[in-house]
């Protein structure tokens, strides 16, 4: 039986019509094969517009619907729902875009109308082959996995746990808090980082709904939205968490010292160590690469002194499997290692520091007890702060790291405050970006404190003095681009505001979770504006700086957003799985496994008994890399089948009779009685 197709051409007020002669397109559509009715209307997406479709489906017995209007990315769902309300399967519908791709970009009404006709013809041809498709519902496991327990992960975990849902919080390091735990003050309010983050960290450890796993990593993730399974690797701590009281005696007795990562190499720690007495959990971990006992040497001092017998050199790595419904990734950022930027002398000159090192110098529990002093113990008389080290730099990262301007201003203030007002502070900046709440005010305040701002990225930091005043100093050489002259600024100390960058193993983590990275290397959000926390993989959300550079307020807000998204799924308990996924016809499949190797989501398995490849529809995202590769056409994406695409091409390439006279704006074009001609390619 022939299909009964209704075609609806929108005017979109004056956005489509009269540039595209909507009435004429509707009239044209009415002459296409299978089309029972072609109508045009001022606003198809309005209630009367939708009712027009619904009434026609009911009264004319339409079984296929085509709407030509704006981009389907805007209103496809609207019309699918209208079709559904009339009792027709929503996939028996096709939408074609005659606004963004037609009326708005083709000034010539004749050309625009002709193209609209072709697009409508293609949609009509295509919709003939559409099949009824049904979404499936799957249960959502109520538990949530949060990966990374920096401030973003902590925020997300707390938000979710407060709703009553259980959270598995996995942290790679021995304690939580992330980079924020290393900071001293936070801009622009200058409250101390520990004062505001410690209560949150303690709340995590006390929340019964949070299963905190530190010194642990997610090794593998399988499953699909609502039904993920994660394998977590628990690294051996060599300290029994139940017995240890966190007294810290072992930390004093351990004879082995190595550079401390937490102190950014400015101080040493023992082989058995913890970041600070406030660490959560506050129980230490033994560094297996440094510990004498674990490297076959004699020692065991920690075990000897431990009053609770908590040291356990026999601990082995363990794995746990978690069932979860949704995942929040809060894996954070790394800071750029400035060593390769040899011109700034990091690693060569002891008084060149990274931003994080300078944070530690400021921190009351840091290597200097919070005093800003040079390696020789003296206070610096002058400090240069170089902004944008590795950021906004085509050789490193093109993006702006978004936090450096503000923490540089914070350093300005802290230097003036702690070292003394006479200390000279020079900021070498490109632009000052103080966009957040209270940020511009903070800049004003710092400017008033007598800090010098020099516009221009320095070329070099050197110790080669040219004048007696430069002797024994580090000289920052650059150009003051506002004065257009080169300058040499001798200082005692240089701080490099190094870029935030993706974690070193970001690609591997992206692979484990089956998500994408953007060009900058950070995890890719679903939409840069309207989907900043979701990913292309359903049920996996991003929180904080793993998605891109953020300051603390933004990271916390982002995390709260991710928590809400994860909760929305978990609370509903059901998820709708799109039917537009791959299907492999077992009668046609020969089992060559090419599709299996190409599937980015491990959604295809080989059925050895039948010798065919089988799609796990719940895991399939419908990308079609299997269909694009399958020579026999056994693998096809529902709603994007070969039949459908071929028909669309037939419609696009069919000769269209188009009017040669221009329609008068405001009147129905068809009334002009335009003579018609074949298009150029039809004549050829």
């Amino acid at each position, binding site marked *: 039986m022939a299909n009964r197709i209704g075609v609806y051409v929108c005017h979109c007020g004056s956005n489509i019509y009269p540039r595209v002669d909507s009435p004429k397109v509707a009239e044209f559509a009415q002459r296409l*094969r299978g089309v029972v009715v072609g109508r045009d209307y001022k606003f198809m997406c309005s209630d009367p517009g939708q009712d027009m479709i619904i009434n026609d489906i009911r009264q004319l017995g339409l079984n296929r619907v085509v709407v030509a209007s704006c981009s389907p990315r805007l209103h496809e769902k609207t019309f699918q729902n209208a079709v559904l309300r009339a009792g027709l399967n929503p996939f028996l519908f096709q939408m074609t875009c005659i606004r963004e791709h037609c009326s708005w970009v083709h000034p010539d009404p004749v050309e625009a109308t002709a193209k609209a006709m072709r697009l409508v013809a293609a949609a009509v041809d295509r919709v003939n082959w559409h099949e009824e498709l049904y979404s499936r519902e799957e249960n959502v496991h109520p538990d949530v996995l949060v990966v990374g327990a920096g401030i973003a992960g902590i925020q997300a975990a707390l938000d979710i746990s407060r709703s009553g849902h259980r959270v598995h919080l996995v942290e790679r390091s021995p304690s939580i808090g992330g980079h924020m735990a290393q900071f001293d003050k936070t801009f622009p309010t200058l409250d101390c980082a520990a004062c505001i983050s410690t209560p949150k960290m303690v709340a995590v450890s006390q929340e019964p709904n949070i299963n905190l796993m530190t010194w642990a990593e997610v090794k593998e993730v399988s499953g699909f939205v609502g039904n993920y399974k994660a394998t977590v690797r628990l690294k051996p701590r060599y300290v029994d968490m139940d017995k240890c009281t966190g007294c810290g005696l072992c930390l004093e007795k351990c004879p082995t010292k190595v550079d401390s990562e937490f102190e950014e190499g400015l101080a040493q720690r023992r082989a058995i160590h913890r970041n600070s007495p406030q660490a959560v959990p506050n129980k230490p971990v033994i560094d297996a690469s440094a510990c004498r006992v674990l490297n076959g040497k004699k020692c065991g001092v920690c075990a000897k002194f431990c009053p609770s017998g908590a040291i356990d050199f026999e601990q082995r790595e363990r794995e746990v499997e978690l069932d979860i419904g949704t995942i929040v990734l809060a894996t954070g950022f790394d800071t750029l290692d400035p060593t390769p930027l040899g011109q700034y002398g990091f690693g060569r000159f002891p008084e060149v520091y990274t931003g994080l090192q300078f944070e530690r110098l400021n921190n009351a529990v840091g290597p200097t007890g919070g005093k800003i002093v040079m390696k020789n113990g003296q206070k610096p008389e002058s400090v240069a702060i170089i902004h944008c080290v590795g950021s906004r730099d085509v050789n490193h990262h093109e993006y702006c790291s978004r936090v450096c301007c503000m923490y540089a201003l914070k350093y300005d203030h802290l230097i003036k405050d702690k070292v003394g007002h006479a200390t000279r502070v020079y900021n070498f900046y490109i632009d000052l970006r103080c966009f957040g709440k209270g940020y511009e005010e903070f800049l004003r305040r710092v400017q008033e404190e007598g800090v010098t701002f020099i516009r221009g990225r320095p070329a070099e930091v050197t110790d080669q003095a040219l004048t007696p005043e430069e002797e024994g100093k580090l000289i920052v050489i650059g150009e003051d681009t506002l004065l257009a002259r080169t300058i040499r600024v001798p200082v005692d100390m240089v701080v490099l505001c190094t870029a935030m960058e993706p974690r070193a193993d970001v690609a591997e983590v992206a692979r484990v979770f089956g998500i994408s990275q953007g060009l900058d290397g950070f995890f890719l959000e679903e939409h840069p504006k309207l989907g900043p926390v979701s990913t292309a993989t359903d049920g996996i959300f991003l929180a904080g700086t793993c998605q891109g550079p953020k300051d603390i307020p933004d990271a916390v807000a982002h995390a709260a957003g991710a928590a809400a998204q994860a909760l929305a799924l978990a609370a509903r308990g059901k998820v709708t799985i799109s039917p537009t996924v791959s299907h492999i016809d077992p*009668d*046609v*499949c*020969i*089992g*060559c*496994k*090419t599709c299996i*190797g*190409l599937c980015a989501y491990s959604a295809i398995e080989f059925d050895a008994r039948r*010798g065919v490849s089988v799609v796990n529809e719940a895991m399939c995202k419908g990308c079609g890399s299997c269909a694009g*590769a399958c*020579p*026999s*056409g056994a693998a096809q994406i529902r709603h994007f*089948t*070969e*039949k459908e695409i*071929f028909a669309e091409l*037939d419609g696009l390439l*069919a*000769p269209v009779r188009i009017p040669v006279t221009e329609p008068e704006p405001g009147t129905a074009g068809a009334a002009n009685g335009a003579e018609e001609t074949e298009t150029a390619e*039809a004549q050829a």
Partner: protein
Amino acid sequence: MATTVSLEVRDANPTKALREFLARLLTEGLAGGVLAGKHLSANGGPQGAVMPTLVTDPALLETTDPLAPSFPLNAARLVSRLTRGEGEGSLAAVLRPCEVRAFTELVKLNQGAMDNVILIGFDCYGAYPNADYPRFIASRAPDEATLAFLAAASKGLTDGEGYTLARACKACEHPAAGGADLNIGLFGVDTGQRLLITANTPRGEGLLNRLALSDTDPAHAQARESALEELIAARSEYRDTMFAETATATESLGKLGAYLSNCISCYNCRAACPVCYCKECVFLTDVFDHKPWQYMGWARKNGQLRMPTDTLFFHLTRLSHMSLSCVGCGQCSNACPNGVPVMELFRLVGDRTQRAFGYEAGRNAEEAPPLTVFREKEFAEVTGGTD
């Protein structure tokens, strides 16, 4: 260095020596079955093609004649059938080099397994098209005809009244089976005295050890190498001429249409193709089951429509599907009822596409077919230099 041994030939009959060699594999339990070409109508009937036959009883190897210049089909598909899934005992398959290479391609596509099969290739002088072979053998006894062919072919004299060596064979620059476990050496060898057997794989080495055959005189191996090189040079030259002619004949889509104008869409070429491995060709699925009004629509476009339709589409699609795996066996041309020079086209395009991907069909089982893999940084030229 691959081991090469010498297999003694008695009565100046290398076919007989080969048969005895295969019989040893069966009797000594080294293989549970032998797949090799066999004369099935040797007992007075009309001389038909030499069909691959799976022999388990050594006594029945009598009319086995893998060296006969008959090539009714590419047996790679048969070896695929025999090695796909659970097997029983190991199989020895005597194959032409192009069959070994086609099988290698099939293994990569999960259409067979190397685990339980001994691939025995041989120096291949080529074969006659199916239509020519009966004229070649005429009323001669099988062994007599084959021995005469070997003698003539070693002098480069293969064509006679009513029979011409297949063009695919004349253009084949892979006359020796480098990828087989064992290769029977004929080129430059006095086959009245001996055959050379070279082991190309550890499995082949193991077999030769078990069979305790004596190493050959290095001079014999050297002579074979030289003859092989000479043959490859001659065939490459023939191939290049063929490529040039074919390229000219198909230098536009219009000319390609004319080139394929005799095609009746019987799809025999794809059925005969050893690497067209689909269970059902997409052109036979409902995707191409067009409605009457669709034909009318296409016809209206230019006022006329060639029927059957989709001919160019079919061949271009097949080129995109398997030119990368084309081993140039020529069975497509052999199977074409209308004399469309399919092989020439596929070899030409295959040469180009395989070169573009640095790939050679059948060279190595470890080499992934180009469309089954990808790299993050490659082919920047496709997108105008941006990757």
